[in-house]
């Protein structure tokens, strides 16, 4: 019994940060119709910035809680600035081109950011472990967990709910949905589509970077981080159906549980378990679990 509980809790902890990454990816795809390969780089960027912020705060002798807040604030600021800059300065020039071409544009951004992070932070692993002890250790049904890991679950639930609420229950969200469904009509109704694009993209970058910052205390930051994350979050959004918030949640939980289960049951299968699920889901539901209905032109 405890064994299964371990798998479920480990899976949910994995799912919590994966969900935040996938949420950003699915939002950007939903609004801008771009499958953003550079998304993993934004995750890595967030992790590196968080590590820097934590280290700076710790060097001043301030408590780890200040470091935690400083890390979230600095990541939010820098990530949204980078997102706006990239969208306005670069992506804007490629709108209206083929999806594959846009995908390659983000691949180029991925390559560039890979070297930029190496130039700024070097190739040696960086650690930012101070906030990890922030919430102490907790006992849960006879199992001992690091409090920080468990706190990630409610945080991601709150982030997910906020995005869902923002999209479905606010005026701005309705405008974004209108742009998703019919861009031309939105323009003619007076929506500033460019602004929606820029904000949606910045939000996507922010979510990826936030997930990076939240996992930064748990991991070591080194080159290669971004390509691992991007491939995981691709699997999640494809399983869930591209552009769907609910899909990202279900996909993240599936992938998180699959990873945790294979770590505990058969470690050698961990790597391809996820793609196996993705291939299996696509075999039966070619457009993912939560497919959005679209009209087709004949």
């Amino acid at each position, binding site marked *: 019994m405890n064994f299964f509980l371990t798998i479920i809790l480990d899976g949910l902890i994995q799912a919590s940060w994966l969900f935040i990454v996938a949420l950003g990816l699915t939002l950007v795809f939903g609004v801008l119709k771009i499958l953003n390969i550079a998304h993993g780089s934004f995750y890595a960027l967030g992790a590196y910035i968080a590590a820097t912020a934590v280290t700076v705060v710790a060097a001043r002798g301030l408590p780890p809680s200040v470091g935690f807040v400083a890390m979230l604030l600095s990541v939010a600021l820098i990530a949204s600035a980078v997102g706006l800059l990239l969208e306005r300065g*670069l992506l804007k020039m490629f709108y209206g081109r083929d999806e594959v071409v846009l995908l390659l*544009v983000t691949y180029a951004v991925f*390559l560039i950011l890979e070297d930029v992070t190496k130039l700024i932070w070097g190739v040696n692993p960086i650690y930012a472990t101070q906030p990890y002890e922030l919430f102490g250790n907790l006992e849960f049904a006879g199992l001992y967990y690091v409090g920080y890991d468990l706190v990630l679950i409610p945080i991601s639930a709150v982030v997910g709910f906020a995005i869902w609420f923002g999209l479905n229950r606010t005026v701005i969200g309705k405008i974004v949905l209108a742009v998703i469904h019919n861009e031309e009509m939105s323009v003619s109704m007076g929506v500033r589509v460019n602004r929606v694009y820029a904000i949606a993209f910045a939000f996507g970058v922010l979510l990826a970077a936030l997930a990076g910052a939240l996992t930064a205390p748990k991991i070591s930051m080194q080159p290669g981080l971004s390509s691992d994350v991007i491939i995981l979050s691709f699997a999640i959004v494809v399983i869930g159906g*591209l552009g769907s918030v609910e899909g990202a949640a279900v996909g993240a939980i599936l992938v998180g549980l699959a990873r945790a289960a294979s770590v505990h049951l058969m470690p050698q*299968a961990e790597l*391809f378990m996820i793609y*196996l699920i993705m291939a299996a889901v696509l075999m039966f539901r070619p457009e993912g679990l939560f497919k959005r209905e679209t009209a*087709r032109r004949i």
Partner: protein
Amino acid sequence: MRKGLHPLVMITLVAAVTLFGRVLPTWTLSLATIAASNALIALGIVVLARTGNVSFGQGLFFAAGGYGVALIANAWGLTDAVAQVIVGAACGGLLGLVIGPLIARYSGIFFGMLTLALSMVFYGALVKSTALGGSDGFNVGRPTLFGMSFTDPREADFMLYAVSVIVTGFAGIAATILFRSEFGLASLAVRENNLRVEYLGLSANRIISINFLIAAIFAGASGAFALMAQRHIDPQFAYWTTSGEFVFVAVLAGNQSVAAVFVASMALELVRSFSNLYLPNTWQLVLGVFLLGVILFLPRGIGSLWIRDRRKRRLSATAALTAERGAAP
């Protein structure tokens, strides 16, 4: 399409390029071999892309060809370069024959993502298989040609160069003929609108499957070349960034000209090796900027540098199409 070169002219061109290898310096020979082998797999992507589907998992067939050849070479002592290419193509082709019909039902992003997933499943399996050397892979011997073995490195390099240029050249000629054929034009029609193709009595799935098979055969042969050039194989062959680079070449080339694929592949290898040499820490940055530049300034790929008239004709066709769409509803 009548403006293209005659096949005989193309054969002469291939022969000239092969002989040109005699005067090239040695370091360009291995570079050109890699470029030709990458061009072969990218050509397969272009063939497939004409149906509107882009595979992000060509590494699967690339690795299947490479591993197939490596295993047979080590088990049975098959070292002949031409035989290895045929074995590689057959391995890729067999796998493509199985996967093609399954995957032909998908389109757009989902097609790309499913191919990527399949190639990553293969990658994961390869990394974990101790029998195949796990993540380190294993080595194979030097290839021979028709019973001749090459101990002089320059001769060995030239042999590989010649075989890869000739095989890729003939694949290019075959692709050109295919593009001009009825089947090739039907493939283009699938990209424009697969429902209309179905109404005309053709099977869009079948067309996509066949194009997929061709791409898989090219990728398998390309894997054999990569193996012969490195004399080593590891799971990196099936990793997604490997597949990404092949798509990179195909998009750089554009889908108008077969020759553009070779030029793009060579340009990419040159940019990569020079930036590797002079900017070892930022070569990916240079590559990224180069890619952005080409996409921005040559929207129809490198091929559009010399195929201008066709582009104009296409533009006027698009204008006609837009007018028709505007008038229809």
